[in-house]
């Protein structure tokens, strides 16, 4: 009886010591969910969430310090995905989501100051000093970082036009459901 209790107690202490040491030396530096969240975010580092970049936003999300609705370019779809990943409830009605958007240069007002080019996180604006700028549609994420930089308000966000290739059949009973 005593031997059994004693040996189990010794084993428990020994294994506990091993686990305790392992926890100290093999600790995971980064919260593993942080990487997954970083993958989900747009990655354009536009800074509209208030953090320096998407990695910092992901870290804040992982610590539970930021709301899942923080990312305006991600819209409702991203908020929903983040909520599902983090297992939190989210009120999507508050998320403004006009669908995907693109930046557009009003060519008649653009003075070619190059400020938007410097602001664009994905190098989607092309142009040179005193030349009319333009937006490469494929590279623009619609983050809006360029809008406030423009001294002549030539930059605006417009909804991405629906094309034949992007049109989706409506969901049956969508109105009823």
């Amino acid at each position, binding site marked *: 009886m005593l031997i059994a209790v004693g040996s189990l107690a010794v084993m428990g202490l020994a294994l506990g010591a091993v686990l305790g040491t392992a926890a100290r030396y093999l600790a995971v530096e980064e919260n593993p969910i942080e990487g997954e969240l970083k993958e989900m975010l747009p990655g354009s580092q536009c800074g509209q969430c208030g953090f320096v970049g998407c990695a910092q936003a992901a870290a804040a999300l992982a610590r539970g310090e930021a709301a899942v609705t923080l990312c305006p370019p991600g819209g409702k779809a991203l908020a929903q995905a983040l909520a599902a990943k983090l297992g939190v409830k989210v009120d999507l009605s508050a998320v403004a989501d006009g669908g995907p958007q693109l930046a557009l240069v009003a060519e008649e007002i653009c003075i070619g100051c190059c400020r938007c080019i410097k602001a664009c996180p994905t190098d989607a604006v092309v142009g040179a000093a005193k030349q009319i700028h333009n937006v490469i549609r494929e590279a623009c994420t619609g983050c809006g970082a360029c809008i406030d930089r423009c001294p002549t308000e030539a930059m605006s966000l417009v909804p991405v036009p629906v094309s*034949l290739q992007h049109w989706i059949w409506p969901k049956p009973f969508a109105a009823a459901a």
Partner: protein
Amino acid sequence: MSMGLFDRIFKQPRWGVHPDDNKRPAADVPLRMLPPPARVYMPLHQHVGGAARPVVLVGQKVLKGQLLAAAQGNISAPIHAPVSGVVSAIGEVTAPHASGLGFAAITVENDFAENWIETDPVTDPFSLAPEEIARRTGLAGVVGLGGAAFPAAVKFALGKRLAVTTLIVNGGECEPYLSSDDRIMRDHAAQVVDGARIVMHAIGAREALVGIEDNKPEAIAAMTIAAAQFPEVKIRPVPARYPMGSDKQLIQTLTGKEVPADARAAEVGVLVHNVSTCAAVHQAVRLGRPLVERIVTINGGAVAHPGNIFAPLGTLVDELLAFCGLTATPSRLILGGPMMGTPLLHGRIPLVKGASGILAFDAREARLPAAGPCIRCGSCTRACPMGLLPLEMAARIRAGDLDGAVEFMLTDCIACGCCAYVCPSHIPLVQFFSHAKGELAARERARLRTEAARRLAETRIARLEREAKEKAEVAARRKAERKAAKARAAAEQAQGETA
């Protein structure tokens, strides 16, 4: 050649449905020619792949068959003038698409001169290299005329690369109401057989199996006569069962081979081409004529004189319907068949290469019964030719669980519509699947976009860092140079002083 009683009872496929085919009387009416329209609208994107690039200018005179727009990219097809006349506009027309959105088209005003461009006929296509046949077919803008509109020349190259041994010529035409393939086999069987032999030569196939549904005895008879002197072309009647004209089902019925999921037919050694496509290949290679006209079935309860019409591409649907006469305002317009066709919002839409039929339905044909709840009877499961569980997939899509639907192999769905057709509760099953496939494609596009944006952002950050580093290096070098110059000057001065 009709099937024996034994075959009829024991060799019926276990999948699919058998709707009223409604093919007659339209199929039996002799082919009619549409009087040339005053204006045609040739869309730049009538095929799978990249849109064609215009090579004509507004105001330019063109001959019939002249190149209007060239193929662009690896998978694409050129567009040719269906009539002779003048290019009057390059602009937007409504696409034959459920969305009613527009796409680019070239408008040609007909001068009614019917002046053909100089063609380059070939007397013996079998003396040409297979690559040359593929090239000529590609330049003639031939695409799959059964509805898929996949560029034929691209398929030839694929067949050649994957060592295809059997060409399957698809004369299934399983969609109700349609009879354009039936008509081309009855009236131009020799062209179809010749085209099939040219395709065989182009892909290196040893035999051609022509699968024709047994509800078309006249076509089977005509094709048997046309193929009599060519033992390599075998006419094979198949049971009339929808969707027999779907390539995977026809391949299985004719060869017993099942095309694996996510694989192409060529990977099991067969290639499928439609009978009308074979006739177009004959026209393109033997006569050097590009694809500018096609046979289209005009049918439906609202049509006064249904039948098959030979019409230039780019003719408006309204003009085709007016030619056949309407007994009432159509309750629904469909491009293609009633099972898989595209609903059209109006008739000011041009005829495209892949359009095998235009259906104008009356109120009785167009009615949609109200949907009820799923009673889990399993009818859809028995009807599904791909062996899927439509009820399970639809329930998941309805609840917004797309991944759940994908686990039930939504990606294998061919959208044939058998499930929705047999559903006793009239649940729009296939509509759920079309919606979900669109959503999945949008999700994939968004993922690719996000990845591209991340790459761009990372490249930019790396560039900014590199620039900052280079700037710092340059500054450091300048500083060092200045220091060295100063030291040199000081040394010289010191030397001068000592001297």
